[in-house]
Protein backbone atom coordinates (compact mmCIF):
# COMPACT_ATOMS: atom_id res chain seq x y z
CA UNK A 1 0.00 0.00 0.00
CA UNK A 2 1.18 3.53 -0.83
CA UNK A 3 2.13 5.29 2.39
CA UNK A 4 0.99 8.59 0.88
CA UNK A 5 -2.64 7.56 0.36
CA UNK A 6 -5.42 6.54 2.75
CA UNK A 7 -7.72 3.56 2.20
CA UNK A 8 -9.95 5.68 -0.07
CA UNK A 9 -7.05 6.86 -2.23
CA UNK A 10 -6.95 10.36 -0.76
CA UNK A 11 -3.74 12.22 0.03
CA UNK A 12 -2.66 11.30 3.56
CA UNK A 13 1.02 12.37 3.56
CA UNK A 14 2.85 14.20 0.77
CA UNK A 15 6.31 12.72 0.55
CA UNK A 16 7.08 12.38 -3.15
CA UNK A 17 5.49 13.00 -6.54
CA UNK A 18 6.55 9.46 -7.48
CA UNK A 19 3.78 6.88 -7.55
CA UNK A 20 0.85 9.27 -7.17
CA UNK A 21 -1.91 9.02 -9.80
CA UNK A 22 -2.47 11.82 -12.29
CA UNK A 23 -5.94 12.54 -10.85
CA UNK A 24 -4.41 13.32 -7.46
CA UNK A 25 -1.72 15.62 -8.87
CA UNK A 26 -4.45 17.40 -10.84
CA UNK A 27 -6.56 17.69 -7.69
CA UNK A 28 -3.64 19.41 -5.93
CA UNK A 29 -3.32 21.89 -8.83
CA UNK A 30 -7.09 22.54 -8.94
CA UNK A 31 -7.32 23.02 -5.18
CA UNK A 32 -4.36 25.41 -5.31
CA UNK A 33 -6.16 27.40 -7.98
CA UNK A 34 -9.23 27.74 -5.77
CA UNK A 35 -7.03 29.21 -3.03
CA UNK A 36 -5.78 31.90 -5.41
CA UNK A 37 -8.79 34.11 -4.52
CA UNK A 38 -7.80 34.28 -0.85
CA UNK A 39 -5.34 37.14 -1.37
CA UNK A 40 -8.14 39.31 -2.86
CA UNK A 41 -9.82 39.56 0.53
CA UNK A 42 -9.07 42.15 3.18
CA UNK A 43 -8.71 39.23 5.61
CA UNK A 44 -6.24 37.04 3.71
CA UNK A 45 -7.27 33.85 5.44
CA UNK A 46 -9.77 31.02 5.32
CA UNK A 47 -10.81 29.25 8.54
CA UNK A 48 -10.23 25.73 7.19
CA UNK A 49 -7.49 24.62 9.63
CA UNK A 50 -8.55 26.74 12.59
CA UNK A 51 -7.52 25.12 15.84
CA UNK A 52 -4.93 22.85 14.23
CA UNK A 53 -1.20 23.01 14.76
CA UNK A 54 1.48 22.69 12.09
CA UNK A 55 5.05 22.07 13.13
CA UNK A 56 7.76 23.14 10.71
CA UNK A 57 10.57 20.73 11.45
CA UNK A 58 13.69 21.91 9.62
CA UNK A 59 16.85 19.88 10.15
CA UNK A 60 18.42 21.77 7.24
CA UNK A 61 18.57 25.51 6.65
CA UNK A 62 15.90 27.05 4.43
CA UNK A 63 14.35 30.48 4.33
CA UNK A 64 12.01 30.55 1.36
CA UNK A 65 10.48 27.10 1.74
CA UNK A 66 9.95 27.48 5.47
CA UNK A 67 8.48 30.95 5.06
CA UNK A 68 6.03 29.91 2.36
CA UNK A 69 4.95 26.86 4.37
CA UNK A 70 4.44 29.12 7.37
CA UNK A 71 2.45 31.64 5.35
CA UNK A 72 0.37 28.86 3.75
CA UNK A 73 -0.49 27.42 7.16
CA UNK A 74 -1.36 30.85 8.54
CA UNK A 75 -3.61 31.64 5.56
CA UNK A 76 -5.44 28.41 6.44
CA UNK A 77 -5.78 29.74 10.03
CA UNK A 78 -3.58 27.00 11.53
CA UNK A 79 -1.17 27.71 14.36
CA UNK A 80 2.47 27.30 13.31
CA UNK A 81 5.54 26.44 15.27
CA UNK A 82 8.95 26.72 13.60
CA UNK A 83 11.54 24.38 14.93
CA UNK A 84 15.01 24.83 13.52
CA UNK A 85 16.83 21.73 14.57
CA UNK A 86 20.57 22.15 14.13
CA UNK A 87 21.98 20.36 11.12
CA UNK A 88 23.57 17.23 12.43
CA UNK A 89 24.60 13.91 10.93
CA UNK A 90 23.80 12.20 14.23
CA UNK A 91 20.11 13.06 14.00
CA UNK A 92 19.03 9.65 12.73
CA UNK A 93 17.16 6.53 13.75
CA UNK A 94 16.46 6.45 17.45
CA UNK A 95 17.24 10.11 17.94
CA UNK A 96 14.84 11.18 15.23
CA UNK A 97 12.16 8.92 16.67
CA UNK A 98 12.70 10.35 20.14
CA UNK A 99 12.41 13.88 18.75
CA UNK A 100 9.21 12.85 17.01
CA UNK A 101 7.61 11.32 20.12
CA UNK A 102 8.35 14.44 22.12
CA UNK A 103 6.82 16.70 19.49
CA UNK A 104 3.80 14.44 19.12
CA UNK A 105 3.23 14.73 22.84
CA UNK A 106 2.60 18.44 22.18
CA UNK A 107 -0.49 17.45 20.14
CA UNK A 108 0.35 18.83 16.73
CA UNK A 109 -1.55 17.76 13.63
CA UNK A 110 1.05 18.08 10.89
CA UNK A 111 4.81 17.89 10.47
CA UNK A 112 6.48 19.75 7.62
CA UNK A 113 9.88 18.11 7.44
CA UNK A 114 13.13 19.12 5.80
CA UNK A 115 16.10 16.87 6.38
CA UNK A 116 19.45 16.29 4.70
CA UNK A 117 18.95 12.52 4.77
CA UNK A 118 16.99 10.96 1.91
CA UNK A 119 13.97 9.14 3.33
CA UNK A 120 13.68 11.12 6.57
CA UNK A 121 10.11 12.26 5.82
CA UNK A 122 9.07 8.70 4.94
CA UNK A 123 10.57 7.49 8.19
CA UNK A 124 8.56 10.03 10.16
CA UNK A 125 5.37 9.27 8.21
CA UNK A 126 5.71 5.58 9.06
CA UNK A 127 5.94 6.33 12.76
CA UNK A 128 3.45 9.13 13.44
CA UNK A 129 0.19 8.39 15.20
CA UNK A 130 -3.05 8.23 13.17
CA UNK A 131 -4.45 11.67 12.47
CA UNK A 132 -1.03 13.29 11.97
CA UNK A 133 0.09 14.16 8.42
CA UNK A 134 3.63 14.57 7.15
CA UNK A 135 4.68 16.86 4.29
CA UNK A 136 8.14 16.45 2.81
CA UNK A 137 9.79 19.86 2.40
CA UNK A 138 12.94 18.32 0.92
CA UNK A 139 14.88 15.22 1.95
CA UNK A 140 18.51 14.81 0.92
CA UNK A 141 18.85 14.17 -2.80
CA UNK A 142 15.54 12.34 -2.89
CA UNK A 143 12.44 14.51 -3.27
CA UNK A 144 11.00 18.01 -2.92
CA UNK A 145 7.41 17.40 -3.98
CA UNK A 146 5.82 20.77 -3.09
CA UNK A 147 8.49 22.59 -5.14
CA UNK A 148 7.74 20.29 -8.08
CA UNK A 149 4.00 20.90 -7.74
CA UNK A 150 4.38 24.68 -7.61
CA UNK A 151 6.46 24.36 -10.78
CA UNK A 152 3.65 22.28 -12.36
CA UNK A 153 1.13 24.91 -11.24
CA UNK A 154 3.25 27.66 -12.84
CA UNK A 155 3.65 25.67 -16.08
CA UNK A 156 -0.12 25.07 -16.25
CA UNK A 157 -0.77 28.75 -15.53
CA UNK A 158 1.42 29.92 -18.44
CA UNK A 159 1.02 27.01 -20.88
CA UNK A 160 -2.50 25.77 -20.17
CA UNK A 161 -1.60 22.07 -19.98
CA UNK A 162 1.16 19.50 -20.32
CA UNK A 163 0.35 17.27 -23.31
CA UNK A 164 2.08 19.37 -25.98
CA UNK A 165 5.06 20.47 -23.89
CA UNK A 166 8.79 19.91 -24.20
CA UNK A 167 10.42 20.62 -20.86
CA UNK A 168 14.16 20.81 -20.20
CA UNK A 169 15.66 20.51 -16.71
CA UNK A 170 19.15 22.00 -16.67
CA UNK A 171 22.18 21.80 -14.42
CA UNK A 172 23.16 19.79 -11.36
CA UNK A 173 20.69 16.91 -11.75
CA UNK A 174 22.82 14.60 -9.60
CA UNK A 175 22.34 16.48 -6.34
CA UNK A 176 18.86 17.79 -7.12
CA UNK A 177 15.77 16.54 -5.29
CA UNK A 178 13.81 19.16 -7.24
CA UNK A 179 14.80 17.58 -10.58
CA UNK A 180 13.71 14.12 -9.48
CA UNK A 181 10.33 15.34 -8.22
CA UNK A 182 9.79 17.39 -11.38
CA UNK A 183 10.58 14.44 -13.67
CA UNK A 184 8.03 12.20 -11.92
CA UNK A 185 5.37 14.92 -11.89
CA UNK A 186 5.88 15.88 -15.55
CA UNK A 187 5.70 12.28 -16.71
CA UNK A 188 2.60 11.56 -14.63
CA UNK A 189 0.89 14.71 -15.91
CA UNK A 190 1.64 13.63 -19.48
CA UNK A 191 4.29 16.09 -20.71
CA UNK A 192 5.22 15.27 -24.32
CA UNK A 193 8.97 15.22 -23.64
CA UNK A 194 11.17 15.70 -20.60
CA UNK A 195 14.85 16.45 -21.17
CA UNK A 196 17.74 16.76 -18.78
CA UNK A 197 20.83 18.78 -19.70
CA UNK A 198 24.09 18.85 -17.78
CA UNK A 199 27.71 17.70 -17.65
CA UNK A 200 28.26 13.93 -17.35
CA UNK A 201 29.64 14.39 -13.84
CA UNK A 202 26.38 15.98 -12.65
CA UNK A 203 23.97 13.51 -14.31
CA UNK A 204 23.13 10.33 -12.39
CA UNK A 205 23.76 7.05 -14.23
CA UNK A 206 20.66 5.43 -15.74
CA UNK A 207 18.66 8.68 -15.48
CA UNK A 208 17.05 7.64 -18.83
CA UNK A 209 15.14 5.00 -16.88
CA UNK A 210 13.05 7.77 -15.32
CA UNK A 211 11.69 8.62 -18.77
CA UNK A 212 13.91 11.52 -19.87
CA UNK A 213 16.11 12.33 -22.86
CA UNK A 214 19.68 13.17 -21.90
CA UNK A 215 21.68 16.01 -23.45
CA UNK A 216 25.21 17.13 -22.65
CA UNK A 217 25.04 20.22 -24.86
CA UNK A 218 22.84 23.22 -24.03
CA UNK A 219 21.96 24.34 -27.55
CA UNK A 220 20.98 20.83 -28.60
CA UNK A 221 18.99 20.24 -25.43
CA UNK A 222 17.20 23.60 -25.41
CA UNK A 223 16.14 23.43 -29.06
CA UNK A 224 12.36 24.12 -29.34
CA UNK A 225 11.61 23.56 -25.64
CA UNK A 226 8.57 25.32 -24.12
CA UNK A 227 9.78 25.32 -20.53
CA UNK A 228 13.31 25.61 -19.09
CA UNK A 229 13.69 24.53 -15.46
CA UNK A 230 17.05 25.73 -14.19
CA UNK A 231 18.54 24.16 -11.07
CA UNK A 232 20.69 25.81 -8.48
CA UNK A 233 24.32 24.74 -8.54
CA UNK A 234 24.54 23.16 -5.11
CA UNK A 235 27.86 24.69 -4.18
CA UNK A 236 27.68 23.64 -0.56
CA UNK A 237 27.32 20.00 -1.62
CA UNK A 238 30.00 19.98 -4.25
CA UNK A 239 32.88 17.63 -3.59
CA UNK A 240 35.22 19.72 -5.71
CA UNK A 241 36.19 17.14 -8.28
CA UNK A 242 32.90 17.26 -10.20
CA UNK A 243 33.42 20.63 -11.84
CA UNK A 244 36.45 22.47 -13.19
CA UNK A 245 35.21 25.91 -12.05
CA UNK A 246 32.05 27.96 -11.72
CA UNK A 247 33.02 30.18 -14.64
CA UNK A 248 33.60 27.10 -16.81
CA UNK A 249 30.17 25.79 -15.76
CA UNK A 250 28.56 29.12 -16.68
CA UNK A 251 30.27 29.14 -20.08
CA UNK A 252 28.92 25.66 -20.90
CA UNK A 253 25.64 25.38 -18.96
CA UNK A 254 24.74 28.83 -17.70
CA UNK A 255 21.44 30.05 -19.20
CA UNK A 256 22.16 33.13 -21.30
CA UNK A 257 19.99 34.96 -23.83
CA UNK A 258 22.15 33.50 -26.57
CA UNK A 259 21.50 29.87 -25.51
CA UNK A 260 17.81 30.59 -24.79
CA UNK A 261 17.40 31.84 -28.38
CA UNK A 262 17.15 28.24 -29.68
CA UNK A 263 14.15 27.48 -27.42
CA UNK A 264 10.55 28.11 -28.48
CA UNK A 265 9.98 31.89 -28.82
CA UNK A 266 7.41 31.79 -25.98
CA UNK A 267 9.42 29.51 -23.70
CA UNK A 268 9.29 30.31 -19.98
CA UNK A 269 12.26 30.12 -17.61
CA UNK A 270 11.87 28.76 -14.09
CA UNK A 271 14.25 28.41 -11.15
CA UNK A 272 13.50 27.06 -7.64
CA UNK A 273 15.75 29.70 -6.04
CA UNK A 274 17.87 30.97 -4.54
CA UNK A 275 19.59 31.81 -7.82
CA UNK A 276 23.35 32.05 -8.30
CA UNK A 277 23.62 34.90 -10.79
CA UNK A 278 26.38 34.34 -13.30
CA UNK A 279 26.80 30.69 -12.28
CA UNK A 280 23.74 28.84 -13.61
CA UNK A 281 21.76 31.78 -14.97
CA UNK A 282 22.61 35.20 -16.38
CA UNK A 283 20.97 38.20 -14.68
CA UNK A 284 19.53 39.34 -18.01
CA UNK A 285 17.59 36.05 -18.25
CA UNK A 286 16.63 35.82 -14.57
CA UNK A 287 15.21 39.36 -14.69
CA UNK A 288 14.06 39.13 -18.30
CA UNK A 289 10.61 38.82 -19.89
CA UNK A 290 10.66 34.99 -20.08
CA UNK A 291 11.42 34.57 -16.39
CA UNK A 292 8.57 33.37 -14.14
CA UNK A 293 10.80 32.96 -11.10
CA UNK A 294 8.85 35.38 -8.89
CA UNK A 295 5.40 34.04 -9.89
CA UNK A 296 6.78 30.64 -8.82
CA UNK A 297 7.31 32.00 -5.31
CA UNK A 298 3.76 33.44 -5.20
CA UNK A 299 2.29 30.15 -6.47
CA UNK A 300 4.21 28.24 -3.80
CA UNK A 301 1.85 29.56 -1.14
CA UNK A 302 -1.39 28.42 -2.85
CA UNK A 303 0.11 25.01 -3.72
CA UNK A 304 1.25 24.44 -0.12
CA UNK A 305 -2.19 25.51 1.13
CA UNK A 306 -3.71 22.87 -1.17
CA UNK A 307 -1.39 20.08 -0.05
CA UNK A 308 -1.82 20.92 3.64
CA UNK A 309 -5.61 21.11 3.51
CA UNK A 310 -5.99 17.94 1.43
CA UNK A 311 -3.70 15.91 3.70
CA UNK A 312 -5.18 17.26 6.90
CA UNK A 313 -8.71 16.73 5.64
CA UNK A 314 -8.18 13.02 5.12
CA UNK A 315 -6.15 12.71 8.33
CA UNK A 316 -8.93 14.27 10.39
CA UNK A 317 -11.40 11.88 8.83
CA UNK A 318 -9.27 8.78 9.45
CA UNK A 319 -8.80 9.83 13.06
CA UNK A 320 -12.53 10.24 13.61
CA UNK A 321 -13.08 6.75 12.15
CA UNK A 322 -10.29 5.33 14.27
CA UNK A 323 -8.27 4.04 11.32
CA UNK A 324 -4.86 5.07 10.08
Amino acid at each position, binding site marked *: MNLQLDSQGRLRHFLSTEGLPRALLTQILDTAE*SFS*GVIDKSVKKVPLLRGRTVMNLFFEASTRTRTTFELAAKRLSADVINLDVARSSTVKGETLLDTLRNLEAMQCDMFVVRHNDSGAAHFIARHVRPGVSVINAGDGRHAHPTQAMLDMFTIRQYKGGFEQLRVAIVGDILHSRVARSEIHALNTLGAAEVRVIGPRTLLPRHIEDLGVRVFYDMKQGLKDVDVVCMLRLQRERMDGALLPSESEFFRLYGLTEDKLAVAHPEAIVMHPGPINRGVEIASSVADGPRSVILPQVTNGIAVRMAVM*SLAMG*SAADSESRGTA
Partner: protein
Amino acid sequence: MTELIPVDSLIEKTAAQLKSVLDERAIKDPLMVGIHSGGVWVAERLHAGLGLSEPLGTLDISFYRDDFSRIGVHPQVRPSRLPFQVDGRHVVLVDDVLYTGRTIRAALNELFDYGRPASVLLAVLIDRGQRELPIAADVCGMQLQLPSDDQIKLQGPDPLTLVIRKTA
Protein backbone atom coordinates in the same frame (compact mmCIF):
# COMPACT_ATOMS: atom_id res chain seq x y z
CA MET B 1 -41.00 9.76 -6.53
CA THR B 2 -39.44 12.58 -8.54
CA GLU B 3 -41.10 15.92 -9.15
CA LEU B 4 -39.86 18.60 -11.56
CA ILE B 5 -40.73 22.25 -11.00
CA PRO B 6 -40.18 24.86 -13.74
CA VAL B 7 -38.35 27.83 -12.30
CA ASP B 8 -38.95 30.74 -14.72
CA SER B 9 -42.12 31.89 -12.97
CA LEU B 10 -40.49 31.27 -9.59
CA ILE B 11 -37.54 33.50 -10.50
CA GLU B 12 -39.88 36.24 -11.75
CA LYS B 13 -41.78 36.07 -8.47
CA THR B 14 -38.54 36.22 -6.46
CA ALA B 15 -37.28 39.16 -8.54
CA ALA B 16 -40.53 41.11 -8.00
CA GLN B 17 -40.41 40.44 -4.25
CA LEU B 18 -36.77 41.47 -4.08
CA LYS B 19 -37.52 44.70 -5.91
CA SER B 20 -40.26 45.62 -3.48
CA VAL B 21 -38.09 44.82 -0.45
CA LEU B 22 -35.26 46.97 -1.87
CA ASP B 23 -37.74 49.84 -2.52
CA GLU B 24 -39.18 49.46 0.95
CA ARG B 25 -35.71 49.79 2.49
CA ALA B 26 -34.74 52.58 0.05
CA ILE B 27 -31.72 50.62 -1.21
CA LYS B 28 -30.77 52.15 -4.55
CA ASP B 29 -27.69 50.38 -5.85
CA PRO B 30 -27.17 47.02 -4.16
CA LEU B 31 -24.33 44.56 -4.77
CA MET B 32 -25.41 41.03 -5.61
CA VAL B 33 -23.48 37.91 -4.56
CA GLY B 34 -24.43 34.36 -5.56
CA ILE B 35 -23.36 31.22 -3.71
CA HIS B 36 -21.90 28.43 -5.89
CA SER B 37 -23.29 26.78 -7.79
CA GLY B 38 -27.12 27.00 -7.79
CA GLY B 39 -27.11 30.38 -6.08
CA VAL B 40 -24.95 31.83 -8.86
CA TRP B 41 -27.39 30.63 -11.53
CA VAL B 42 -30.32 32.25 -9.70
CA ALA B 43 -28.29 35.40 -9.02
CA GLU B 44 -27.39 35.75 -12.72
CA ARG B 45 -31.09 35.87 -13.57
CA LEU B 46 -32.06 38.18 -10.71
CA HIS B 47 -29.13 40.45 -11.56
CA ALA B 48 -30.29 40.72 -15.19
CA GLY B 49 -33.94 41.06 -14.18
CA LEU B 50 -33.27 43.97 -11.83
CA GLY B 51 -30.77 45.57 -14.23
CA LEU B 52 -28.10 46.05 -11.56
CA SER B 53 -25.08 48.13 -12.57
CA GLU B 54 -22.29 46.51 -10.53
CA PRO B 55 -20.94 43.14 -11.74
CA LEU B 56 -22.16 39.98 -9.99
CA GLY B 57 -20.01 38.52 -7.21
CA THR B 58 -19.65 34.79 -6.55
CA LEU B 59 -18.80 32.92 -3.37
CA ASP B 60 -17.62 29.34 -3.00
CA ILE B 61 -18.05 28.73 0.71
CA SER B 62 -16.24 25.35 0.77
CA PHE B 63 -13.32 26.71 2.82
CA TYR B 64 -15.77 28.10 5.40
CA ARG B 65 -17.89 24.98 5.90
CA ASP B 66 -18.27 23.41 9.34
CA ASP B 67 -17.78 19.81 8.18
CA PHE B 68 -14.04 19.89 7.24
CA SER B 69 -13.12 17.57 10.11
CA ARG B 70 -15.72 15.06 8.88
CA ILE B 71 -15.26 15.13 5.11
CA GLY B 72 -12.11 17.15 4.35
CA VAL B 73 -11.76 19.45 1.36
CA HIS B 74 -14.69 19.49 -1.03
CA PRO B 75 -13.97 18.50 -4.61
CA GLN B 76 -14.22 21.14 -7.32
CA VAL B 77 -13.92 24.29 -5.27
CA ARG B 78 -13.93 27.45 -7.38
CA PRO B 79 -12.24 30.67 -6.31
CA SER B 80 -14.57 33.27 -4.80
CA ARG B 81 -14.68 36.46 -6.86
CA LEU B 82 -16.06 39.71 -5.47
CA PRO B 83 -15.12 42.31 -8.11
CA PHE B 84 -16.01 45.27 -5.86
CA GLN B 85 -15.44 46.71 -2.37
CA VAL B 86 -18.16 45.59 0.05
CA ASP B 87 -17.39 48.20 2.74
CA GLY B 88 -20.47 50.31 3.45
CA ARG B 89 -22.51 48.71 0.64
CA HIS B 90 -25.87 46.93 0.74
CA VAL B 91 -25.41 43.31 -0.32
CA VAL B 92 -28.04 40.90 -1.65
CA LEU B 93 -26.88 37.36 -0.92
CA VAL B 94 -28.51 34.79 -3.24
CA ASP B 95 -28.87 31.03 -2.90
CA ASP B 96 -31.14 28.48 -4.55
CA VAL B 97 -32.40 26.49 -1.56
CA LEU B 98 -32.46 27.52 2.11
CA TYR B 99 -32.30 24.45 4.35
CA THR B 100 -30.28 24.09 7.59
CA GLY B 101 -28.84 27.61 7.34
CA ARG B 102 -25.24 26.35 7.59
CA THR B 103 -24.34 27.44 4.07
CA ILE B 104 -25.60 30.96 4.80
CA ARG B 105 -23.62 31.05 8.06
CA ALA B 106 -20.48 30.13 6.10
CA ALA B 107 -21.27 32.67 3.36
CA LEU B 108 -21.74 35.48 5.91
CA ASN B 109 -18.40 34.63 7.49
CA GLU B 110 -16.65 34.68 4.13
CA LEU B 111 -18.40 37.90 3.07
CA PHE B 112 -17.19 39.67 6.21
CA ASP B 113 -13.60 38.66 5.42
CA TYR B 114 -13.91 40.97 2.40
CA GLY B 115 -15.08 43.96 4.43
CA ARG B 116 -17.98 45.44 6.42
CA PRO B 117 -21.19 45.75 4.39
CA ALA B 118 -23.88 48.28 5.42
CA SER B 119 -26.45 45.49 5.32
CA VAL B 120 -26.94 41.97 4.00
CA LEU B 121 -30.24 40.72 2.67
CA LEU B 122 -30.92 37.07 1.87
CA ALA B 123 -32.87 36.07 -1.24
CA VAL B 124 -33.62 32.40 -2.01
CA LEU B 125 -35.70 30.62 -4.59
CA ILE B 126 -37.04 28.05 -2.14
CA ASP B 127 -37.16 27.72 1.64
CA ARG B 128 -37.57 24.02 2.39
CA GLY B 129 -37.66 24.35 6.18
CA GLN B 130 -35.71 22.23 8.74
CA ARG B 131 -33.50 25.11 9.95
CA GLU B 132 -30.67 24.32 12.39
CA LEU B 133 -29.50 27.92 12.87
CA PRO B 134 -31.29 31.24 13.57
CA ILE B 135 -31.26 32.35 9.93
CA ALA B 136 -34.21 33.53 7.78
CA ALA B 137 -34.67 34.69 4.20
CA ASP B 138 -35.81 38.28 3.47
CA VAL B 139 -37.02 37.23 0.03
CA CYS B 140 -38.25 33.75 -0.87
CA GLY B 141 -39.95 32.52 -4.05
CA MET B 142 -41.62 29.49 -2.49
CA GLN B 143 -41.96 27.84 0.91
CA LEU B 144 -42.06 24.07 1.35
CA GLN B 145 -41.95 21.79 4.37
CA LEU B 146 -39.84 18.88 3.17
CA PRO B 147 -38.69 16.13 5.56
CA SER B 148 -34.91 15.75 5.86
CA ASP B 149 -34.88 12.52 3.82
CA ASP B 150 -36.28 14.26 0.76
CA GLN B 151 -33.87 15.89 -1.64
CA ILE B 152 -34.30 19.11 -3.56
CA LYS B 153 -31.76 20.30 -6.07
CA LEU B 154 -31.53 23.01 -8.70
CA GLN B 155 -30.14 21.66 -11.96
CA GLY B 156 -28.67 24.01 -14.53
CA PRO B 157 -27.40 26.31 -15.72
CA ASP B 158 -29.53 26.13 -18.88
CA PRO B 159 -32.36 25.39 -18.52
CA LEU B 160 -32.86 25.67 -14.77
CA THR B 161 -35.00 22.91 -13.27
CA LEU B 162 -35.88 22.16 -9.69
CA VAL B 163 -35.81 18.44 -8.94
CA ILE B 164 -37.50 17.06 -5.82
CA ARG B 165 -36.93 13.42 -4.83
CA LYS B 166 -39.41 12.21 -2.24
CA THR B 167 -38.74 9.13 -0.19
CA ALA B 168 -42.36 8.56 0.86
